């Protein structure tokens, strides 16, 4: 087998799986991370993220006690960091679904190495996103009014409001992503069950593996279901950020009321999400020794997506300006000039430098195949995309009447809640890396050359035994 895989490597340039891997060595490499005893560094990372998460808990508890007055919201800026953070986190999630669903439909086999990882990121990012609309309502005990539940008032939510569409879009997105992720995990959970040494792990993995035994008739239904999930998740992910953008675009506020918002939001979401995948993947592949599966080719492909979507976002910024001028609307024109040269110009130019200039470095192959550069660039993109949402929301500070103008400054609680949400994200992600296979084992095996029954290595073998 080992000699045969060597042939395979030369037949399929560049290989999706580097190194001389057999089916067992794939299982070994991925499962080892899960089965080894947690080491000190992992525990330290978990404790650090848990303490940052505690900051979120404290901030939210104080918010519930005191009310939204602890935030920097004012009149005219009635929307602040809560929605900025919400859109930021939802956007990050989009890369996971793009990788797992859209690239699957386009038969981009390189996605197999990163899809599990990216889908986990999606789910945790959406959990972080859901925190903000959950806590921003002021009277949290009435948060269930967002859902169409029968109640003693006999009232229902306003289905004509984009904010309600958003509730449905994001909760559907979360549920479908979770199901898609879980279905993808079933065969790998079965692998962990069959390898389990301890009773607890055998039962825990066995419970969630639902008795998967790799029967061909099961794979037949499974693969069809997987294809259907990909087909469902693709329009879903595009709809989610479209509907998020409706929160802004459907209102009659200069700088928000534009038809470019849905595509521009979706491009931005994919842009920020891929950056976050790179931020996570670059250190993880190193720490957990997964470089043979998450190869430089994978990182390079993601950087290409970042370059494309970053350029799209830059194009959208210029289109917004052009239309603001071309529309002839004084208020629209003012909103944009004010963004670039008004009191929040600093935020605008941070956004432009991080989102428009940074990705352009990826035209160079040297930079997009360099791990250190990728990591640094991805951090810049994350910062830039947070500022993009901030710039949009801060547009509120100068509306039609100069007497109503104001400024927005976050309070310590705005900042602590946002930082705390990173604690929640990393806490969940660090747990995931240790207790679930970070790479889709069965899918990786299926894209190896040996997985094809007509692989030339087997024909040679056949000739030598039967010939």
């Amino acid at each position, binding site marked *: 087998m080992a000699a045969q895989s060597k042939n395979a490597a030369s037949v399929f340039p560049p290989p999706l799986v580097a190194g001389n891997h057999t089916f067992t060595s794939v299982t070994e490499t991925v499962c080892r991370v899960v089965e080894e005893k947690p080491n000190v560094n992992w525990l330290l990372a978990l404790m650090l993220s848990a303490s940052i998460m505690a900051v979120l808990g404290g901030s939210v508890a104080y918010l519930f006690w005191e009310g939204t007055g602890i935030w920097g919201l004012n009149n005219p800026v009635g929307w602040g960091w809560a929605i900025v953070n919400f859109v930021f986190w939802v956007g990050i999630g989009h890369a996971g679904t793009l990788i797992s669903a859209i690239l699957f439909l386009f038969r981009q086999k390189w996605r197999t190495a990163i899809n599990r990882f990216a889908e986990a990121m999606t789910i945790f990012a959406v959990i972080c996103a859901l925190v903000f609309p959950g806590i921003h309502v002021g009277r949290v005990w009435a948060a269930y009014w967002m859902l*169409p539940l029968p109640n003693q008032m006999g009232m*229902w939510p306003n289905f*004509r409001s984009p904010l309600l569409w958003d509730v449905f879009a994001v909760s559907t997105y979360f549920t479908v992503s979770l*199901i898609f992720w879980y279905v993808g995990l079933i065969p790998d959970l079965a692998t962990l069950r069959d*390898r389990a040494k301890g009773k607890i792990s055998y039962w825990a993995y066995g419970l969630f593996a639902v008795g998967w035994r790799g029967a061909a008739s099961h794979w037949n*239904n499974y*693969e069809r*279901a997987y294809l259907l*999930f990909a087909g469902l998740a693709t329009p879903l992910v595009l709809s989610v950020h479209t509907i998020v953008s409706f929160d802004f675009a459907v209102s009659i506020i200069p700088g928000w009321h534009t038809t470019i918002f849905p595509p521009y939001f979706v491009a931005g979401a994919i842009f920020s999400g891929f950056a976050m995948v790179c931020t996570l993947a670059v250190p993880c592949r190193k720490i957990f020794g997964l470089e043979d599966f998450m190869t430089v080719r994978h990182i390079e492909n993601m950087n290409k997506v970042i370059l494309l979507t970053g350029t799209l976002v830059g194009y959208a910024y210029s289109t917004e300006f052009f239309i603001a001028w071309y529309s002839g609307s004084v208020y629209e024109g003012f909103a944009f000039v004010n963004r670039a040269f008004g009191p929040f110009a600093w935020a605008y130019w941070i956004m432009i430098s991080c989102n428009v200039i940074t990705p352009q470095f990826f035209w160079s192959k040297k930079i997009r195949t360099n791990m250190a550069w990728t990591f640094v660039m991805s951090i810049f993109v994350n910062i830039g995309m947070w500022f993009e949402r901030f710039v949009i929301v801060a547009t509120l500070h100068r509306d039609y009447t100069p007497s109503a103008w104001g400024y927005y400054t976050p309070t310590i609680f705005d900042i602590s809640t946002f930082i705390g949400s990173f604690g929640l994200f990393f806490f969940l992600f660090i747990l995931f890396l240790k207790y679930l296979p970070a790479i889709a084992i*069965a899918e990786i095996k299926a894209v190896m050359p040996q997985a094809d029954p007509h692989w030339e290595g087997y024909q040679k073998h056949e000739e030598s035994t039967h010939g």
Partner: protein
Amino acid sequence: MAKTKIWGAVAQFENPAELVHGVETIRGAGYKKIEAYSPFPIHGMEKVLGLGGSKVPWITLVGGLCGFTLATWLQWWTGSVDYPVVIGGKPLFAVESSVPIMFELTVLLSAFGTLAGMMILNGLPRPHHPLDGYAPFRRVTDDKFFISIESDDPKFDALAVQAALEQAGGTNVALVEE
């Protein structure tokens, strides 16, 4: 002790090529209740085994139709029958403003249908299986491949079946009790 019933016979194969060849040989010998097991889906296996197309899409369709109907009814009934409130001078019910939620619930219930369809058609969850007692089978989720012939096959005969599996290139041939 009561005599235990034989569930079927099983044999181990080393790679996808042997597995496909094995299934072809056994099907050629006239056996019907055959199942192949592999750590990952093998391209073309459904044809070799003579499995029809999966029925999961039909269940997905039912889920999707339910979701669409639910969303349409929910938005129309709550807004214009149960508690009509005019907001911003907009109509009580309009197709245009109902599209986002129609879409979302269609996708949501389609996804539920797909999950349920896959589970039900595969008979999962299934905590216990006769093959669990067959030691080599633990590696079916790692790197080994298996073929089973169940005892309710009309041609099933304990000795002949084991010979056939060996003939097809199988190793570790065994009878498995229920």
